[in-house]
């Protein structure tokens, strides 16, 4: 895609918009630090992603463009996969931002607002970064300040969620840094451009280590099971607005990471198969745990785990086959998830704040939105399934992807059931009025907007063929049948705590504290003078011996 034609307008205007896309949110951050500007910042900050949206639309219409600032060692570029994701992510940030920051009673506070802007900057930057260090910077920015969005109250569960989120995030960052160092080491000319280092990856001596680290670090970000533990805790604890943007836009930093850093034009059957297996495992694992959950937000988190698993599986299949067309297709499917998952979290907020029993259309609309993820015909999800068809191929992966659509339908209907049963669960304090008021538009937009984007990756006529419609319909039908069964016998399922395996990880983590006691004792010993003196003499002798030995 990178070699395709760029219109003169895009070439001229694009770089400017790229810079503005990052500069404007940062300018708002700066404004928060001046008392005189705070009011204006808070009223207008929902507009911060507008240049990013402009850049994305320009790139979709006019072809790829880039911006280089060698002095700052910053290089940005926007190709089709990046633009697809950036367009919907920016839109989600604008819409949820407008609903959140024009509300402003006691909530949200300044800390939330600044963390919002920083996360937003990182979210935009991750889609447009073209070199390793810029990517790492924005990736850290979309991950770490999100702590302030998740931890917005003092409940112990919230603090726990924040701690677990931080642990996963920091570990993921460390793994990614090592991956990037390996990538850079494999590039003989010293270039740090993502394109260049990934092109050298298949022949690099550090290939396997780098791929393992790439999959592990981005896998943690997208909640690839068994690295999924943070996600249900975090989305359950976060305010609705934060959960919407993080699950919709934030997580896609991991998806774009996989798209950019996997050498997709080059067939690596073993690595591809491994990623596909992991992805499909997550796809079904997410549903299996999700149906045991009662809190709608947790159910949505497990749905995210499952959906990201499907995307990872598609990328794995593409990697195994050496399919270079996969990035745009997977990006489209991910873009659909940005809109739908964002809207689904807003649905939770809307249902909590309005009397949905009076609005006859509310429940069907929520169901349609949810089933979009399962590929219900005429929804954006149907297009996403269609886009993933080519990377999935015709073998067992295709069968599994139908099965996962069925499972998703089941999970989404479970979600709607839980939504109906738990509405008014008392979180209205942090739900801006605009969310229940405009929710139908958000939902309809999420269902139908992907139709506008689909021409960028495929033909609409194909999407409307009878075959495709039937393909989309029967998994939903089976899923609905299963959902009836779940509603009937679901109470017999074992209760599984939100975050599932994370409970074990937390226990292991806590027991490692005992180890640090040993360090403390050692320190107490070492800080006696005789021990210090002995160490001093020993070190002198060892150094002298080593200096003598080496020749």
């Amino acid at each position: 895609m990178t070699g395709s034609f760029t219109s003169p307008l895009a070439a001229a205007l694009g770089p400017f918009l790229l810079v503005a896309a990052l500069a404007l949110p940062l300018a708002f951050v700066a404004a928060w630090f001046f008392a005189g500007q705070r009011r204006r910042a808070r009223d207008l900050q929902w507009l911060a992603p507008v240049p990013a949206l402009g850049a994305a639309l320009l790139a979709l219409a006019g072809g790829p463009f880039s911006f280089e600032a060698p002095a700052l060692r910053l290089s940005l570029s926007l190709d089709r996969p990046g633009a697809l994701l950036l367009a919907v992510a920016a839109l989600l940030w604008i819409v949820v931002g407008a609903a959140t920051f024009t509300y402003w009673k006691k909530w949200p506070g300044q800390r939330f607002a600044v963390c919002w802007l920083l996360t937003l900057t990182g979210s935009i930057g991750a889609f447009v970064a073209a070199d390793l260090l810029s990517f790492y910077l924005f990736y850290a920015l979309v991950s770490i300040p999100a702590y302030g969005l998740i931890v917005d109250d003092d409940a112990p569960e919230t603090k726990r969620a924040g701690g677990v989120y931080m642990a996963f995030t920091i570990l993921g960052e460390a793994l990614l840094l090592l991956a990037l160092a390996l990538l850079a080491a494999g590039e003989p000319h010293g270039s740090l451009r993502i394109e260049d280092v990934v092109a050298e990856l298949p022949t690099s001596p550090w290939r396997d280590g780098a791929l393992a680290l790439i999959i592990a670090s981005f896998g943690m970000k997208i909640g690839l099971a068994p690295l999924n533990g943070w996600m249900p805790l975090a989305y359950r604890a976060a305010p609705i607005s934060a959960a919407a943007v993080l699950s919709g836009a934030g997580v896609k930093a991991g998806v774009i990471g996989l798209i950019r850093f996997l050498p997709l034009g080059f067939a690596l059957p073993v690595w591809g198969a491994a990623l596909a297996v992991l992805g499909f495992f997550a796809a079904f694992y997410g549903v299996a745990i999700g149906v045991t959950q009662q809190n709608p937000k947790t159910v949505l988190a497990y749905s995210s785990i499952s959906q990201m698993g499907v995307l990872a599986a598609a990328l794995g299949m593409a990697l195994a086959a050496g399919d270079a067309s996969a990035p745009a297709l997977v990006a489209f499917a991910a873009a659909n998830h940005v809109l739908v998952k964002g809207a689904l979290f807003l649905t939770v907020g809307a249902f909590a704040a309005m009397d949905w029993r009076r609005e006859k259309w509310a429940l069907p609309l929520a169901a349609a939105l949810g089933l979009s993820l399962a590929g219900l015909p005429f929804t954006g999800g149907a297009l996403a399934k269609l886009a993933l068809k080519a990377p999935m191929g015709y073998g067992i992966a295709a069968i599994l992807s139908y099965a996962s659509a069925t499972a998703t339908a089941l999970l989404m209907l479970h979600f709607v059931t839980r939504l109906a049963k738990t509405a008014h669960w008392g979180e209205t304090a942090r739900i801006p009025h605009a969310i229940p008021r405009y929710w139908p538009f958000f939902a309809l937009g999420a269902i139908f907007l992907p139709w506008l984007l689909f021409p960028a990756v495929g033909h609409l006529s194909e999407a409307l063929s009878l075959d495709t419609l039937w393909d989309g319909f029967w998994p939903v039908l089976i899923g609905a049948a299963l959902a009836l069964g779940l509603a009937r016998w679901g109470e017999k399922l074992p209760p599984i705590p939100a975050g599932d395996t994370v409970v074990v990880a937390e226990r292991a983590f806590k027991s490692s504290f005992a180890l640090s006691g040993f360090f403390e004792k050692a320190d107490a010993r070492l800080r006696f003078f005789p021990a210090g003196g002995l160490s001093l003499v020993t070190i002198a002798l060892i150094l002298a011996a080593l200096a003598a030995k080496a020749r």
Partner: protein
Amino acid sequence: MIETAAALEPTFGGPLLVLAILLPVVGVLLSFVLGGRFAERVALALAPVGLVLALAIAFLVWRSGAPVVYNIAGLAPPLGIALRADGLSGVMLVTAALIVAAAGFYARATFATPEGSTEARAPFAFWILLQGIWAALILLFIGADLFNLYVGLELLTFAAVPLVCLSGKPETLVAALRYLMFALFGSVFYLLGAALLYGAYGTLDIVLLSGRVAPLPAVWLAAGLMTAGLLAKTALFPLHLWLPPAHANAPAAASAVLSGLVVKGSFVVVVRLWFYVLPALPGDAAQVFLGALGSAAILFGSVLALRQPRLKLLIAYSTLAQIGYLFLIFPLASGQHPWTIDGWNGGLMQTLSHAFAKAAMFLSAGLIAESLGHDRIAEFTGAGRAMPVTFLALGLGGLSLMGLPPSGGFAAKWLLLRASVAAGHWVFALVLLAGGLLAAGYVFRILSPALADGSLVLKSPPQRSREHAALALAVVAVALGFAPQEFFDFLQIGRMAVAAQP
């Protein structure tokens, strides 16, 4: 030998080096002569002058692309004594000037001579000792002779130790005595080693020695003794017994200087020893051993920092860990390999970014302790809202310690990581990452309660100007992350000239 001859020639601007040393020495003398409250004024007035001098020297080094050299009294070594400033000296001089200035500015409130009295013990001592430390550091950064460096080390120790016990409380006296005792051990070892080298080669000039040193028993022993002595003064694990109590008990401004600068003084001498005096010694194993001690320090110091209940102790143990990173420079920058450029730059970047970040954190910790009346981390709930600028400085310093972008700490970690990958030193790469994780853990421990909501009554709000001093240092630590390629080229000046000797 031609290169040796060139490296001994005095260059344009050499007298600036003498001036740089003389400035704080004159300051100390003036403070004695004028006495009382003038000590503070002299110290604060000389700080900007010293900064300008440091910048001028760095500029000369940068413009000529080679070390600036001065022979004292016009006599070339081995008869005379030389001063030499290269890229390493340049950045360290500027760093020292900035941190001394910031610490001095910050300390005005604590160490003002009370109205009505002409002289008070603690303030008078503080301002003189601060200038003494500064003079010693300058000597260490530009000294080109191992005995000259010894003088610098002694001056540094004798100026630093009393700073620890300025308050006169019993526990500070104990800490200071431990520091003094162990630093003296270190001095003895260093002096013994230097004497061995002098006996073998009849000179202690670094350039001359580098051309003459051969793998002989005397040299091996000298290398071992001098290095061990310097490690004791740098508090590299397991020789850290004096550091946590000393750094945690000193007044905040003194802690900032001790942690940010003083330990770097002896570290620079270790660098001079292994990269400038002994490169002819094929000491790969010894260099890896130094790296291994550094790795142990990183893990050990970080784990202990995680367990500290008090902020200042936590920061002190974090210094222990961060010193460990410095020693990765030895395995990663020794020899003639292509990755040594990254290893060297990464090690020096870590030296600089830690100096600024840690100084900022200690200054912030001082403000927190004054405003809250304690520094127990568990009771910080709501403190972030009560004193946002202080915690911003603390947080930015922490960002650099964790090695997250954008910060000098990140630049350092990235370079060191690349060098260890290229050199095949996997253990160091893993230690670098583990150290980052543990650092994130202890920074999170400080910030998590501080950022939580809570009502907190400050004993007194922090003084705005002092908060800004801490913040300014933290911002420098972050800004180092944006250092351009020219900056790294500057760090290389003077490195190869000596290392390339046969």
